[in-house]
């Protein structure tokens, strides 16, 4: 990540250090909280309307494409306020994640104008952007005529802003000066360890501090618990297997997916360090992972933890968060723990996933769509979600500072805030932005599956993977 | 009878049907067939002849009674162990096999030497004239050829009994006459006990030593063809056997000075008692009503008591068929000479006492045949 771009986590850390100050000063924070409360009872609608012509597109009808996710649920729960505020109508299609991104691709690639805005991750914009399917949102953010004065774009964690901006050059730095803002961060997650405190107590282990430890702890758990397995990580044949715990640990070992020189990319997964890391990872799954690991998406990883079928997960913090509540069997039994895989590393380096909102380039009512997007990413809405709904890991600094939100989390989720605060400084996207992202990660996941199934030795598998990716890069003119 | 090959004793076949009354297809059938004898089972469709055949073959269980073949009781044995060979009526050939393999299949599976098989197949296919089609598949040959192949497949086996179901039904008329002769001489020569089912009297007459006439599951009469023609046991046999069938009318009987049969709005057959032997008159006795029958060939045209309007007069090249409208029915007369009469004209006719068959009006059993009692 660029030096120029301020790492939002660093900024937040700075914020945290001055928290007492800020809390004592209260000022802005109290104001924000008040504004959010207003929003909740509908008064904010009028308050917002006072500064900006929210009714400009009254009567227009927006159509959204959403992933089945608590963030979307939170937004839907608040949608009536948007309708009242703008006089617009909003409808949406909502799909489970299994098929969601295929739906997005189908809609965008056919240049369909049926959706105006949609949920996406940052990785996807590396495809959508160059393909010309989405808009550079700077055109709107920076236009005072189109964006309400209270929007406060700078309140969004800077690292997230940077991670969702790319100049379109393969290997180009995220958040560079010439970067286009392909999407607006909405909610995010970072990867750490969530564990079952009861099980850990029963077996008498403590959360692992690094990968070698984790391998051991997980093996012990698996052995001693007699039923539940030690560690849950994703394993499906998909990019999603690579990006959470796996890449976080990988980055912690200082490893990269590509090296970039002279604008050319070269696969970097077959370094000796990478091979060692892969070996540990594979061993961990073989010894203590879920039996049908290779079909595991975050749904299964989470469900197992919640149902008491696994003792630990190394995945999104918010996933652990969800499993600690609801009607899950292990509700309230979970603990959260920041994790630096490399024993030599000083701090965790979690890779992040950022749920964002992007605008369909084929939309016929982009300005109106932007109204929705700025509302959905506004402080007010973010605050509503964080306080009242499960909008954990909100993207705005001001929300993270909200006491009501913090208290709620602190009270009900054992160690969540500590985990977050320990992890966040090193959290960012550790992938190299480039158009073959999905080709590469899917193949990487496939290779991992083969390694775990002992179809190929780790060293050999990684050499093959790197060679194959280099060939593809070359074919695509990137290598 | 000395040498009985097959005997059926009190054989019943009752089909049980769900939710419907059972069907009694064969009723208390008794039949004994001598070794080497050729029997025809004659009857209309549904008369029970096919059920009988299938019971003998073992495709249908016997409801009652027993079947003995070559001194073995076979009615409980599986078909394969009964020692019976059968030629089926329909498409019974094995479609996937050539005609040759069809004929040889049973022999081969019985592990006969290839040479023997070949010899026997050649012999039998010459007999039924299918040598040219031996290497064709059943689907590519005509119905008649299939039937002959099926016949060959049955005859090629050595069995205690041969069942032939309508063995010539599909053949062209010319070929049928030729094959009939050959089949008969083969059966006679080898003393092959056989039963064949047919609805064609010509065939039954030509082939069989004795004919079993069945109707409604009951064996009506089992006799030689001459016997059937001259002395039908009942009205059914009388009207079933014979081409064209016997003309029959219900008549009022007057058995006194004269023997007189008066058909309402129809002919009167009137004879002096002296013309009729006493036993016959006694047999007819005091009946007030009876059914009288005259075979078409016995109707004497051009004279006599009765007159009728001609409905049609058809000359078939060697015989004339004359239909008259009598008592609302057709009365048919056959002559081997052309009759010069046209439809619509009237003609006189009569019948001789010797040609008159009398049946009981109620039981339909024969009372007398011409000058003899039944």
């Amino acid at each position: 990540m660029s030096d120029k771009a301020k790492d939002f986590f660093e900024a937040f850390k700075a914020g945290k250090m001055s928290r007492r100050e800020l809390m004592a000063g209260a000022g802005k924070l109290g104001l924000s909280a008040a504004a959010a409360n207003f929003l909740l009872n509908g008064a904010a609608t009028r308050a917002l309307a006072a500064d900006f012509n929210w009714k400009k597109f009254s009567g227009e009808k927006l159509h959204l494409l959403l992933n089945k996710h608590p963030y979307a649920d939170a937004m839907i729960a608040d949608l009536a306020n948007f309708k009242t505020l703008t006089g617009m109508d909003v409808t949406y299609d909502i799909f489970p994640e299994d098929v969601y991104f295929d739906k997005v691709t189908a809609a965008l690639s056919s240049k369909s104008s049926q959706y105006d805005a949609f949920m996406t991750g940052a990785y996807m914009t590396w495809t959508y952007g160059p393909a010309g399917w989405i808009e550079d949102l700077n055109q709107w953010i920076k236009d005072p005529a189109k964006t309400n004065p209270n929007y406060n774009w700078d309140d969004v964690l800077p690292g997230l802003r940077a991670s969702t901006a790319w100049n379109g050059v393969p290997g180009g730095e995220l958040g560079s000066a010439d970067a286009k803002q392909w999407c607006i961060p909405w909610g995010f997650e970072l990867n750490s360890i969530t564990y079952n405190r009861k099980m850990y107590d029963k077996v008498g282990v403590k959360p692992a501090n690094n990968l070698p430890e984790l391998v051991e702890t997980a093996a012990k758990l698996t052995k001693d618990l007699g039923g539940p397995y030690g560690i849950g990580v994703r394993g499906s044949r998909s990019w999603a297997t690579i990006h959470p715990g796996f890449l976080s640990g990988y980055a912690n070992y200082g490893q990269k997916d590509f090296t970039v020189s002279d604008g050319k990319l070269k696969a970097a997964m077959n370094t000796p360090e990478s091979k060692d890391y892969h070996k540990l990872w594979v061993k961990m799954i073989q010894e203590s992972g879920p039996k049908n690991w290779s079909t595991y998406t975050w749904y299964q990883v989470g469900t197992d933890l919640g149902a008491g079928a696994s003792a630990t997960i190394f995945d999104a913090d918010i996933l652990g968060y969800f499993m600690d509540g609801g009607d899950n069997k292990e509700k309230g039994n979970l603990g959260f723990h920041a994790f630096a895989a490399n024993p030599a590393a000083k701090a965790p380096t979690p890779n992040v996933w950022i749920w964002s909102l992007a605008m369909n380039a084929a939309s016929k009512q982009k300005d109106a769509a932007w109204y929705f997007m700025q509302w959905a990413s506004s402080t007010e809405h973010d605050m509503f979600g964080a306080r009242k709904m499960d909008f954990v890991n909100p993207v705005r600094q001001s929300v993270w500072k909200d006491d009501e939100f913090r208290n709620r989390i602190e009270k009900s989720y054992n160690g969540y805030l500590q985990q977050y605060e320990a992890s966040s400084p090193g959290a960012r996207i550790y992938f190299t932005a480039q158009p073959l992202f999905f080709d590469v990660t899917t193949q990487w996941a496939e290779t991992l599956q083969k390694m775990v199934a002992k179809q190929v030795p780790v060293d050999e598998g990684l050499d093959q993977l790197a060679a194959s990716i280099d060939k593809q890069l070359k074919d695509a003119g990137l290598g | 009878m000395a040498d009985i090959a097959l005997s059926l004793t009190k054989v019943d076949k009752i089909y049980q049907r769900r939710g419907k009354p059972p069907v009694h297809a064969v009723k208390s059938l008794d039949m004994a067939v001598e070794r080497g004898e050729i029997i025809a089972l004659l009857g209309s469709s549904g008369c029970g002849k096919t059920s009988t055949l299938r019971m003998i073959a073992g495709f249908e269980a016997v409801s009652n009674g027993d079947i003995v073949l070559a001194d073995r009781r076979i009615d409980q044995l599986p078909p394969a162990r009964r020692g019976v060979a059968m030629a089926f009526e329909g498409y019974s050939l094995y479609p996937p096999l050539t005609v040759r393999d069809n004929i040889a299949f049973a022999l081969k599976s019985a592990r006969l030497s290839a040479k023997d098989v070949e010899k026997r197949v050649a012999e039998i296919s010459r007999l039924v004239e299918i040598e040219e089609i031996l290497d064709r598949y059943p689907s590519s040959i005509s119905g008649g050829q299939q039937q002959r192949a099926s016949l060959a497949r049955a005859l090629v086996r050595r069995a205690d009994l041969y069942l032939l179901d309508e063995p010539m039904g599909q053949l062209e008329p010319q070929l049928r006459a030729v094959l009939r002769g050959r089949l008969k001489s083969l059966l006679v020569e080898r003393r092959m006990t056989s039963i064949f089912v047919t609805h064609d009297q010509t065939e039954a007459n030509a082939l069989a030593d004795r004919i079993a006439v069945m109707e409604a599951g009951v064996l009506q009469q089992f006799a030689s063809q001459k016997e059937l023609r001259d002395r039908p046991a009942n009205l059914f046999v009388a009207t079933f056997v014979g081409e064209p069938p016997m003309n029959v009318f219900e008549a009022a009987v007057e058995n006194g000075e004269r023997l007189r049969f008066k058909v309402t709005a129809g002919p009167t057959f009137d004879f002096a008692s002296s013309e009729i032997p006493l036993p016959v008159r006694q047999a007819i006795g005091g009946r007030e009503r009876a059914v009288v029958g005259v075979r078409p060939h016995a109707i004497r045209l051009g004279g006599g008591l009765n007159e009728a309007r001609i409905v049609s007069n058809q000359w078939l090249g060697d015989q004339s068929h004359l239909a008259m409208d009598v008592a609302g029915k057709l009365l048919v007369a056959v002559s081997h000479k052309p009759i010069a009469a046209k439809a619509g004209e009237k003609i006189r006719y009569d019948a001789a006492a010797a040609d008159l068959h009398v049946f009981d009006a109620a039981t339909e059993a024969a009372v007398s045949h011409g000058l003899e009692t039944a």
Partner: protein
Amino acid sequence: MTAAAVKSHEAAPRRRKANLLPYFLSLPALLVCVGILIPFVTAIYYSLLRFRLNLPMLKGFIWFQNYIDFLTDATFWHTVRVSLLYTALTVGVELVFGLTIALLLQKPSRVNNVISVLLLLPLMTAPAIAALMWKLMTNPNFGVLSYFVQLLGVSNFKWASDPNTALFTVVLVDVWVYTPFIMILLLAGLRSLPQQPFEAAALDGVPRRFVFFRITLPMLMPYMVTAALFRLLDSIQQFDIIYPMTQGGPGDTLLVFQVRSYLEFYQYTNVGKSAALLIILWAITYALSNVFIKQWLRLRERARGLA
């Protein structure tokens, strides 16, 4: 009529008016389908392009380069192999299994009829739904099948998530869904076979084994070929079961044609490759079905001749 007039008739064969009716009847159906088929031509065109949606600047006509790339790509041959293996296994197992069941149910009786209807139920289950069902049943935590397998003492059976058993698992689901289809077809076939040849064989004392292999099986052939054809077409294009269950994994174990091209398109946005893959699949399907249809027509001719 004079002889000359007759002659003139003989000399001039009548021009038969073309009957437009059949065209009138069949064209609407054709038009509706051809409308759908235009994309097919487009797909052929795409397959000749270097065409990745997210690298628009690379788009260009490259003739058969996509195909050539595949032919030299080991993973492509793996896809061919897996697809054919899957097809052979499912069609083979389903034929044998379906035939066995049909033979067991051959005799029409109340029990047999009820069973044959009950066995239709899996067929009525959408394959995608069936895949979901089996996914639940093979779940290692609460899946009832996993539980049974464990009871049997096999503790490490991983169903679809182990490369060694993944193919077995999806084939099992396919077998579960489609065997009834084959069964019912063959059952109908068996029951419609003429009885007399079998009676003849029974009477002639032909051993059962003989009868089965020399008579029953050949007579059932048209039905078997039809069943195989139907299944073949579906199997080689399998997607509904494999994709929801494994997405082609584990590793590349089940990366069959349609799954692979689906991923090429929707995940890698590589339109050219995806189209080329599908065209190859189409060619294979076409070739295979041609073989079967020829066989089927031959058998039909024979069956028709018989009737």
